[in-house]
């Protein structure tokens, strides 16, 4: 093995947003009268124990570390720094290792951003979601839209090399013009990277209940498609070009960590519910933070289950992931039958004609919108 990326899952939020089904908990969900400090007290100790379990793979280069959640920015910078430090003990973490923090615009200030930079973070990704108050309200987000520009500015001043924003489109009640406003606002901040996700209604969320009751209605797919084409156009115009289906960046600012997922590289996920992948084996940890910490502090593995991928599963995954990337799929890696089945998409405007001639399957904007369908044609 030549490289291993790390993901660190921080499973805490001060409150749960209405659309979110991530593995995250509020302090009072975990403990009666709990505070962030009381519930997360031994969390980093547990993560450091898990790092010890990864020692078998010690010594190789770590191209990226990503702290996601939850809201990792809730934890004090020195606490997060302990994790980075523990990794430095066992692995080669060079100057250009990408170390990302997911942050809520409300949970950082200049001082904290400087501290975060000091403990090693060099990339930050803010959950902006929308610049429209009525959209944020439906999403159940608490931050004020204007806080985003303050946070971006502060991150720049603190010396972050790469600043990214996350946006969500297709929220009930959001118009194409609302969306244009959000994308333009984000781009006007001069960020290096933008992620834009279509809202997915996940089972069991507050949003799902509201939709089921008829209080909210999801937009039709055609509007979602128009929103996607719009963000793609605006990004390209602003000099951010697509490198994955939902991600755009300035040159050199593509997320190295996420690219590792899409290229089926090796990574270790630390924390409750985190998934790992090493050489065709995927495993995942127990979901609940209390279970996770108690397992590790008792000297046990937090692994919940694993799967050893068959050859055909690996090849399906590879198609499913690589088709999302701008680079696409090399046609020579496909069986002739697979090529035949998707050839028509190169004539219908879903695959880039020139790239097809050059031997690559690369999705056009319209093609990206039906990527899953094209994958189904390929993996039959």
């Amino acid at each position, binding site marked *: 093995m030549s490289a291993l990326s790390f993901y660190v899952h921080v499973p805490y939020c001060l409150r749960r947003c209405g659309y979110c089904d991530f593995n995250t908990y509020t302090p009072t969900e975990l403990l009666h009268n709990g505070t962030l400090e009381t519930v997360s007290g031994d969390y980093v100790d547990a993560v450091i124990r898990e790092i010890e379990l990864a020692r078998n793979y010690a010594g190789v280069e770590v191209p990226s570390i990503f702290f996601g959640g939850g809201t990792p920015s809730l934890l004090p910078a020195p606490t997060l720094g302990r994790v980075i430090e523990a990794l430095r003990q066992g692995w080669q973490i060079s100057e250009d290792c990408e170390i990302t923090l997911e942050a809520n615009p409300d949970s950082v200030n200049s001082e904290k951003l400087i501290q975060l930079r000091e403990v090693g973070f060099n990339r930050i990704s803010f959950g902006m979601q929308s610049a429209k108050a009525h959209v944020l309200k439906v999403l159940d987000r608490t931050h004020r839209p204007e806080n985003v520009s303050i946070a971006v500015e502060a991150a720049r001043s603190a010396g972050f090399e790469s600043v990214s924003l996350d946006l969500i489109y297709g929220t009930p009640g959001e118009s194409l013009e609302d969306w244009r406003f959000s994308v333009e606002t984000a781009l006007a901040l001069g960020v290096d990277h933008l992620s834009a996700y279509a809202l*997915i209604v996940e089972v069991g969320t507050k949003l799902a209940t509201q939709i089921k009751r008829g209080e909210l209605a999801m937009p039709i797919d055609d509007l979602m498609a128009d929103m996607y084409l719009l963000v793609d156009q605006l990004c390209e115009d602003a000099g951010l070009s697509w490198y994955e289906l939902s991600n755009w960046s300035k040159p050199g600012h593509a997320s190295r960590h996420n690219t590792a997922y899409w290229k089926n590289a090796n990574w270790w996920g630390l924390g409750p519910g985190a998934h790992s992948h090493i050489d065709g084996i995927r495993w995942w940890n127990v979901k609940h933070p209390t279970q996770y910490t108690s397992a590790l502090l008792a000297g046990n593995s937090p692994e919940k289950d694993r799967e050893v991928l068959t050859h055909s599963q690996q090849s399906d995954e590879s198609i*499913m992931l690589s088709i999302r990337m701008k680079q696409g799929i090399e046609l020579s890696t496909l069986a002739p039958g697979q090529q035949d089945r998707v050839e028509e998409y190169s004539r219908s405007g879903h695959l880039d004609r020139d790239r097809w001639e050059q031997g690559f399957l690369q999705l056009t904007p319209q093609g990206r919108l*039906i990527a899953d369908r094209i994958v189904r044609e390929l993996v039959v």
Partner: protein
Amino acid sequence: MPAIPLAKAPQPAATDPAQIRNFCIIAHIDHGKSTLADRMLGITEVVDPRNMREQYLDRMDIERERGITIKSQAVRLPWRSGIDGHEYILNMIDTPGHVDFTYEVSRSLAASEGAVLLVDCAQGIEAQTLANLYLAMENNLKIIPVLNKIDLPAAQPDKFAAELAKLIGCEPSDCLRVSGKTGDGVADLLDQIVAQIPAPKGDANAPARALIFDSVYDVYRGVVTYVRVVDGHLSARDQIQMFSTGVRHEMLEVGVISPEPVPSKGLGVGEVGYLITGVKDVRQSRVGDTVTNYNNPTKTPLAGYKDPKPMVFSGLYPLDGADYPLLREALDKLQLNDAALVYEPESSAALGFGFRCGFLGLLHMEIVRERLERESNLSLISTAPNVVYQVVLDDGKSVTVTNPSEFPEGKIVSVEEPIVRSTILAPSEFIGAIMELCQQRRGVLLGMDYLSEDRVEIRYTLPLAEIVFDFFDKLKSSTRGYASLDYEAIGDAEGDLVKVDILLQGEPVDAFSAIVHRDKAYAYGLMMTGKLRQLIPRQQFEVPIQAAIGARIIARETISAIRKDVLAKCYGGDISRKRKLLEKQKEGKKRMKMVGRVEVPQEAFVAALATDADIDKAKADRK
């Protein structure tokens, strides 16, 4: 006690015909026939109270669940008359209760000298009962009118006694009143059967003649044939012969049902019982045929034998194409017990390999389908039922069409379709609704009679094709469930009929082709294209759905191209989940049928072929 212990009762093959009474019960579904039969088994003590169970004589699950009798039974009941104190043998011949099985009913009636006309006195007589009553009267059976369920609070025995009296031509006071549930009046009914129904007559010395009124396939014993001996004698040592086929059979066992099979030495004049010959297929032992003695055969068969003729056709396809051999096996097995079921392989571009099956009617079709699904654990798609058409081409050639997709191209001189004479009984407040429905279905009014002050009998001729789809459901819903329907085929008539094709992206989908009256072609096209637009998922290209008569497009809908089919997020933890979803979708894709380049999910075919009533039923099942 009027019951006689079996061992002391007159024995089979040694019972004087004068002591025998053969009767059947004519009743509508849920008018309490099975309960009354249970009560008779109890009161004559042929079934020990400890072994008694409900609907004792209904053997199939499907019979018990639906409360209908598909196959008939014949039970020997010893009874000492409360009137004259003599011993008698009563043979109760259970009859199927549905219009589809009119022929079987007619054979059961032919095996009896009398009929108990059983009517629920909270509901009154129903159309099918009336039809069977007329059939019994034509067969010169003695009719004993009986009002059942007198224990019900809603019972109106006086009203319905007057109705029955008018129908049969007797006095209202002649109607017996019983409750199958409480047993009230049942002993009196048995006494009246003895007193009123004539004893069978026959020539004991003539060559044997026995009427087959049912034959049932049994996994362990082969075909069990139910017979009524008319002349002569059948003994356990005989070789017998089926008159219609001339085939000789060894007699393995002869006996009576009481109500479990009891082997006997034989059966004499007027007796009712069963034969087992080792035959494995009911088609070799057909209802209506005459059984005779091989060594001393009769020259004249009993009258009335007919080959069953399928009236309604439908394609049956396995949902999973791999189940085709299973479906064939299941049909083969079912046919052992159902001489009326016919089928032949057919293939549909849309549905794959299946069978075109012919049925006696709609209930027969439903039962066959349900039995196939239940007993062989198959999931099936059935195409919309259709009738048989005779198409005459301008070159003089005549083509029989049992599948709309075989409707000939080219110049057609005429198309003939089967016509039925239907009888509808309903409360008079629904006359308007019924007439409206019948008019819509190309009906011609034959006449109308009041059975009582507020109940009418309405007679229409209707094309059978108009009945087979959802007429009965519509009739029920427009009369709040009160109307009942009976029909009989009366021949073919020419109609202005056309074939409507449904095209997906220009490709005809054979499963949706229909032969309809020209005036209804547009409505059918509109309905079907509209339905399909809702059911077929968007594809990566625009899909026109058209209805056409020949080359002429009569309706069109369009499914616009899909624009979005992608999950936005795919990070570390999403990958396994997404791959598993993909694996599931792969399976789903296998169940997609390709029509040209258009992917159509199996469910779309099922839903498009369903009637409104099917959809309501599916909704109710889900609740």
